[in-house]
Structure formats: C-alpha cells, structure tokens
C-alpha cells in the first residue's frame, strides 16, 4: 500500500515537474522558474450540537469519517477539518462553550479564531430538551406560550453567538444549518401518547407533520431574522427545506434521512446536508467543484468496496457513481445501491 502510494507520489511529482519544465521552456522563462509551494489547505471547523458531532448518525460508527457531513465536506475539499460540536448542546451551552479560553489540546478558542470556514448546527435542542412532546401538543391546540418562550430564549443566545463569532473572527465564511422536521406519523421523536392526543383533536397524518413545520418556521425564523438584520453575516444551509422537498417527493426516502432514534440524520441524511454545504462553498468560491466531485466519487466507491463486497459493490453500481455529474447524483447512486444491505464491516 505504502509502496504503491510512494510510486504514485513519485509519478505525480515527476509528471508535475515535466509539465512545469515544458511550460517554462515553451514560455522561454526557464531561467526564472521558482517552484510554487502548494497553498496551505483551508481550515473548516464545525460547531453546535449532535447533528454536527456525528456520533449518533453514522452507521456503523466506524465509518464516521466517511459518513458524517463534517468529514465528507472536509475530505471532498481537502480542507483541514475539525469538529467541535457537542451532543446535547442548546444555544446557551454553545455560547458558554465557544467563549472558553484554550484549556486543553482541543484548542477551541484558537480554532474558532483561526477558521477560514465555520459551520454551525444549533437550535434543535432548544426545543427537543424542553418538554417537546407537551410543547407540540399545546401548539397543536393553539397554545403557543411554551414554544414562544423557548424560541425567545434561543433567539437571544443565537444573537450572542453570532455577535461573538463576528467579534473574534470577522473574516470567516460562516454557514448555519436550519433545523429539519423530524415529525411524521410513526416517527419516534414524539411519544405515542402525544400522537394520540393530536388524533383526538382531529389531526390527521399530514396535519401532524404540518405542526412540526409550523413550529420549525418559528425556530428557524431566528436564523433568517438575524440574517435580515445582519446582511451577509452567514449563508443558510437550508436542511429543513431540502429534507422537506425530499419527503414530499419520496416519503420513504424522506423518512430514511433520519437515524433510528428519529432525531439525528442517517448516513443519507448526512450526505444530503454535505451536498448542501458543498454547493454553498462552491458558490462562495471556496471549493473546486470538479475536485470535490472526484474526491466524493472516490470516497463512496471505496466504501462500496469496503462495506458491500459481494452485495452492492457491483460493476453497475460503481459505474453509476463514476458517471454521476454532481455530488447529489453520487449520493443518490450510492444510497440507492446500498439500500437494504447490511454492511460487512468486520472480518
């Protein structure tokens, strides 16, 4: 393996050298040629909650570095990437966390201040950890007091978080995830007693999901409102909109974007978020589309071989990935190929 890599590196260096010399000769500039060092990769950091942390989500956990969106984005683009998200964090926790000085080898303060790109997923726990079940039922019955107070608190903390990041790293390109809607009939995010109560007041399956949509409009409104008041403060990664689009077009696939616990993104959910982030980075001129696509194809093809030998790792599926014209097509090709198969990730 190392030998092959060494040969590959030598060949690449030789090819690059021959090309450089040829170009220089053609341009008549051979005397002045100075090797141009590779630019230092950009540093991207990920902050927020368990959705970003990617411990519950990637399956199997051993594949976290290939499934969690922070790793997919980092690897596809050759960035230096660090994940400083913390499962369970609400906005208040995140605010306290990012203000801590460097206190150990995680070097959070330094990372926040020196990141070229910052991605944040937060807000979800501000509802999830505050009696979500009764909050949803009350909201469905027209009592919005609980939601309103939680959103107000989250709004104040979110504003402080963004103001702080602007203060310590004004040059970073910042991205914020919206919170997607995990509510549908049969989802485990709500206890069955809550669903029963909603049925009792005459709600059907669509209306139950719509309740989640309406509540998240309030929560995600925090993100859009801040942006309206602080133009260009960040780019919104609208996971809520994309998950909902997929759910409406293909309900089974939409449900499959969630992990078994009904809260976290599944492998495919992570891939969908990674694709959204990728597009935002390309639009901002911070990512090379062709390079990222090639790296993403390589990552998924290697996973096919590593996890699905003898099942989904077929010539047809590899060709579908190879022929994909976009990261979204690669995602679709990989997950449709592996649907229904259990990965073999052990000897």
């Amino acid at each position: 393996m190392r030998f092959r890599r060494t040969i590959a590196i030598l060949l690449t260096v030789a090819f690059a050298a021959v090309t450089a010399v040829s170009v220089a000769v053609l341009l008549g500039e051979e005397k002045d040629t100075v090797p141009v060092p590779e630019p230092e990769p950009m540093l991207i950091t990920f902050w927020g909650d368990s959705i970003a942390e990617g411990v519950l989500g990637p399956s199997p956990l051993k594949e976290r570095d290939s499934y969690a969106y922070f790793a997919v984005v980092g690897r596809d683009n050759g960035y230096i990437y660090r994940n400083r998200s913390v499962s369970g964090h609400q906005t208040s926790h995140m605010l306290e966390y990012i203000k801590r000085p460097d206190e150990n080898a995680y070097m959070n303060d330094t990372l926040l201040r020196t990141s070229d790109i910052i991605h944040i997923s937060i807000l979800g726990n501000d509802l999830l950890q505050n009696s979500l079940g009764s909050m949803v039922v009350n909201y469905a019955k027209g009592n919005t007091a609980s939601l309103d107070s939680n959103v107000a608190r989250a709004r104040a903390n979110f504003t402080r978080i963004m103001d702080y990041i602007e203060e310590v790293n004004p040059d970073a390109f910042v991205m914020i995830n919206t919170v997607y809607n995990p509510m549908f009939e049969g989802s485990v995010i709500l206890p069955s007693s809550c669903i029963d109560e909603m049925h009792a007041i005459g709600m059907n399956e669509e209306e139950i999901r719509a309740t989640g949509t309406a509540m998240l409009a309030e929560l995600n409104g925090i993100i859009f409102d801040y942006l309206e008041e602080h133009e260009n403060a960040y780019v919104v990664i609208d996971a809520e909109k994309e998950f909902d689009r997929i759910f409406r077009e293909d309900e089974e696939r939409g449900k499959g974007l969630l992990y078994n616990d009904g809260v976290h993104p599944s492998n495919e959910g992570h891939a969908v978020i990674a694709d959204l982030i990728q597009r935002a980075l390309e639009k901002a001129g911070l990512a090379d589309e062709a390079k990222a696509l090639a790296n993403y194809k390589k990552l998924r093809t290697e996973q096919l071989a590593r996890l699905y030998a003898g099942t989904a790792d077929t010539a047809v599926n590899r060709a579908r990935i190879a022929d994909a014209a976009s990261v979204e097509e690669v995602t679709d090709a990989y997950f449709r190929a592996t649907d229904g198969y259990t990965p073999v990730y052990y000897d």
Partner: protein
Amino acid sequence: MKKARRTVTVILLALVLVLPLSYLTACDNGENEDEAETVDGYYTENTVRYYIKANDIHVMELPIGLLFEPSQTYFELRPDGTMEIRAIFKKNFPAVLKSILQTADADLSELDVQGIVDTYVLELMPAFTLKDIPFSLGLLEATLGLRIEGLDFEYKGVKELCDSLAETSRLPSVLDLPEGLGVVYEGKYRIKDLTSEVTGKTFRAVYTGGSAANGEPYMVLTMAENDEGKETLSLHIEFLNITVTGTTL
C-alpha cells in the same frame, strides 16, 4: 416521570461505560491509519504508564471511578507508537454499581436493553444481537478494537447473564461476574505540540486511533505535568461531561 428519569439515568450510565472507548477507535481502519502516518508527531521515548485513580474519573458527578481496580486501570503509551487503555473492574463491582445506581434512583434490571440495542447499538454496530453475546462481543473487538478481558462464558453468572439477555432482553437482577473482568483497547497514538494563538501556551496533544487525512480522531488527550512534577494524561469528553486523568507513579 420518575421512571423516565431513572431510565434516562441508566441509559446515560450505559453510554458512559461503553461509548467513550468506542470513540477512540472509530475510523481506526487500515486505510485511515496509513493516511494518518503522513501527519507529523512523535512518540514517548519509553513506555509510560498513567494510572487512573478512582477520584481521577469524573463522570457527571457520579463516582464511576469506584468501579475500577486502580492498579489495573491506566493509559499506556509506548515508544513504537502503540498504546493501551486498560480498565479492569474491582472484584465487587456489581455491588458498587448497584449502589451507584441506587443513588441515581435507578435499577439495572429495569433497563430496556433491547430498546437501546434497537435504537442505538444496531446503528452503531449493525448485526449486533443479544441472542449471541459471544458473537456480538467479537464484533466489538473486530470493529472497534475493544476486548472484553476476563469474560469466561463457562462461568455460572456469565451464563445467566447471556441467557437473560437472549431470552428476556433484560439484565438479571443480580449480577455475578468473574474477577478480572474489564475492557482493554489496543491502538496507535501520536503526540503533537500545539500552540494557542491566543495565549501562546503550548499543549501536548495525544491523538488516539486513526483519522482520515487532514482530520482528527474523536478523542484528543492532553499531556501535562501536575503540581508534584508528575506527568499526567487527561481525556475529556464534553458531551458526557467526562474527565479522566492518569498520572505516572
């Protein structure tokens, strides 16, 4: 409400006991280790063992450290880049565990093991089954590098435990487990000196396990020196509010 709180406590305890070590080894496959070799770093000059005492384990304000035998619970870093984490339970740990759980108003026999397996463990480790504990533990070792030491499947209490899990998906009300039981992780590490851009202070980071190129393993330990001039190695996991510190003798 009370029952829900108890259940949550027990689930958290289970996570506390099992997950931290699995984070160590996530992504610890050959490909990634190979890539990680390109990352600069260094190893200890000699084998160094950092013993972990009971009061050096802080887990959500619970006295989890009381479960472990201090002379057999340590981090060990070696000059060849390999490391070991060993956590061996005390002989009377089932009784200690029961006592800790009682203070948290929880009971192990109430734990819905199958529910946890279905919701989390099967996602973390597909193919895991309570019906075949030896297979599932083999899965743990093959995939995450975790070895359960001292688990004799012929031992009466272990048989009862396996039967109870397979038949009822619950733990027996009384745990009778053999002496010397514990968890051992063997893997790789590398040390890198990192300097804070804010304070100028240098931290010695110990990267455990593998990661993809330009990435970072889940756990980064911090090597330092305590007030007595002894070397320490600390593990901190923010979301579980865990801090474990080992100290050289």
